[in-house]
């Protein structure tokens, strides 16, 4: 009898902390670099990757200069995954990039997301509780969050060694598309602080 009671208590104890992953991804509407409003709900029925970025951050630069991020964007884009790059740097910050500058930088790096979003009021960043750049989220076609956290498992890498890291986004999308549960659904993100 006591075992049952203890087991029941443990069960309730472990569900006390709710996971963000597994919950529906909140909708948002924010302008892209061309000024067009982009909504998450526009892409219901497709896999969506949200990438928080800031060109001033050395971690972001590492992933772009090495070609790591642009390669992944192209690869997943070819599988009909919607990639949205979000810059939530607040317009009051010294690191704020105008839509034109952001578009130019993305073009220089050979990036190819579906859209680059300028979240100048930091609304979407706060909605998703984005902490770092980069900070990655993967949403399934039903609108559920299936991955949140770091881009890969090599926090400290050079541009050269970054390619050998285990990419969590590639893994999550691959597993989900194959109908398998996402094995690594949440990791601690690494990078520079989002400039709210």
């Amino acid at each position, binding site marked *: 009898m006591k075992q049952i009671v203890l087991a*029941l208590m443990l069960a*309730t*104890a472990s569900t006390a902390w709710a996971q963000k*992953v597994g919950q529906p991804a909140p909708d948002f509407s924010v302008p892209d670099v061309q000024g067009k409003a982009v909504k998450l709900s526009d892409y219901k029925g497709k896999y969506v990757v949200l990438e928080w970025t800031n060109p001033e951050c050395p971690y972001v630069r590492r992933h772009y200069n090495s070609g790591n991020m642009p390669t992944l964007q192209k690869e997943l884009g070819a599988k009909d995954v919607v990639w949205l790059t979000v810059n939530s740097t607040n317009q009051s910050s010294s*690191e704020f990039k105008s839509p034109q500058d952001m578009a130019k930088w993305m073009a220089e790096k050979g990036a190819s997301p579906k859209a680059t979003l300028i979240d100048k009021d930091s609304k979407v960043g706060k909605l998703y509780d984005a902490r770092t750049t980069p900070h990655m989220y993967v949403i399934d076609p039903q609108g559920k969050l299936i991955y949140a956290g770091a881009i890969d498992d090599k926090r400290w890498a050079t541009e050269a060694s970054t390619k050998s890291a285990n990419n969590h986004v590639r893994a999550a999308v691959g597993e989900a598309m194959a109908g398998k549960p996402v094995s690594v659904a949440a990791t601690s993100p690494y990078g*520079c*602080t989002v400039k*709210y």
Partner: protein
Amino acid sequence: MRLLLLFLFSASVFAAPVKTPQVEAELVAEREALVPGEPITLALRLKAIPKWHTYWRNPGDSGEPTRIEWRLPPGFAAGEIEWPVPERIPVGPLMNFGYYGEVLLLTRIVAPANLAPGTPVTLRAQANWLVCEVNCIPEEAELSLTLPVARSAGTDARWGKPIADARARVPVAAPGGWAFDARGEEGGASLAIAPPDGVALKGAFFLPFDEGKIEPAKPQALSRESGLLRLALPAAAQPVGPFDRVSGVLVLDGKAFTVDSPITARFADLGLAFALLLAFGGGLLLNLMPCVLPVLSIKALGFAQGEGGARHALLYSAGVLASFWALAALLIGLRAVGAQLGWGFQLQSPAAVAFLAALFLILALNLSGLFEFRFAFAGQPSGHFLSGVLAVVVASPCTAPFMGAALGYAVLESGWRAFLVFTALGLGMALPYAALAASPGWRRHLPKPGPWMPRLKRWLAVPLYATVLWLGWVFAQQVSFFHEKKDAAWEPYSAEKVASLAAAGKPVFVDFTAAWCVTCQVNERFVLARDDVMKAFHDKGVRLVRADWTRRDPEIAKALAALGRSGVPAYVLYRPGRAPELLPELLTPQRVLEALGG
């Protein structure tokens, strides 16, 4: 010439500081030379320009902990970085943990015993760090330090003291006298902090070692509970992995200790629903306890004579509930003004014990037929209500299984939750008697009145007499300080003793008991005193400590509260390297042996 070179090398220590625009980095040593076979503390010195900072082992919401990769000659061993306590660095709505200005990150290096004195040795390291103001710059440096080798070495004139100061700021485990306990809460966990006597705490905050467990930027509310401080630790908004340990640095009024406490699923982690369930069950079981059963049986016999009815049942239940509420209000009220009380507090006063003894004596005499006590209220509504009160009064020396945990929850929660728990307890206790009273169907099964009744009453008086004698013994203990022949195997309790024994790696079994606690006495005589149990304690080298709560004792009350209990009995087994194990309130020899064997 060689002599001159040797002299030059042995008299100086070569280090090459690396300078970036933001940081000056170098390796420094606490002693002037390496001594073969002995450890030496080296430090990575990072000095950041104003407003820039580097990071702690858990950088917080973002950032990067500093890393050192040692490149040492063969035979040398290097330990992990020993981190001085960092600062909290808010960045907008987010939080980092790190260091402004200069920081010395310490590492112990051990030189091999076969190192030949005379030839200097160069120790190298690659250090990587992230230095940030608003923007961040990852940096790295190849550093080296050349030290002479000698048979003995004094403190380095320049860096000896700064390294000693830095070591003083590296947190270590708290000394004996401190107790910490982590329990799960809605939305995270909380850490109970019990300081040694005489230490008043003003503030506290917690820095977790691991990311993805505790939210770095959320405030950590501090509340006080009879001698304890409780620090709320909100769970990470996006947790990574299970949150089952509270592991990190606790900073208290300028002191800093490492804490590593499992969040055990003890009864104290109960949600309200489970506490209510346990309280109800405990109330039901209370009817079977030796204090209550004889008295209630007598009352139940009244049904054979035609008493009973729904009104009787309701009034009885009301009496029980009202009594529990009164006790709850008294207990919580007294605790709110700081009294170190727990359940059973009513029995810690000799006057209450004397009153109970007298009451039981009257009841026993009545049952024996020696004393005709015409209960003036018998048969009247107030009589039924008072029977309920009487039932609770006679129940007070006893606790039932599940009650301890439920009461522990109630007393530590306070407020409306506590009253709900006491209500559940009251309902559980009232139910059997009230059900019997209210349903004529059951009563038909009771034997018809006859000459067997006075005989049965005389038999039922026996446990009551025993209770009177026992209460008399308790009273004597409380009043005259007369203690039973001390059991040599058991040492008296102090928090300091338990902590120092545990720190010395000895298993300790603590028996929280009181003379007025029937369950405690039963457990002690029939389980703990058994030959096989005592042998098992002896064989495993377990030190036996008895915490006697017969009289008020704030230290014991505090220890019980830290375990999530509010009363006795409580049995705790401390083993080195493992979480303390709480045993159930009703012990069996098998359970104790199982706990020891594990």
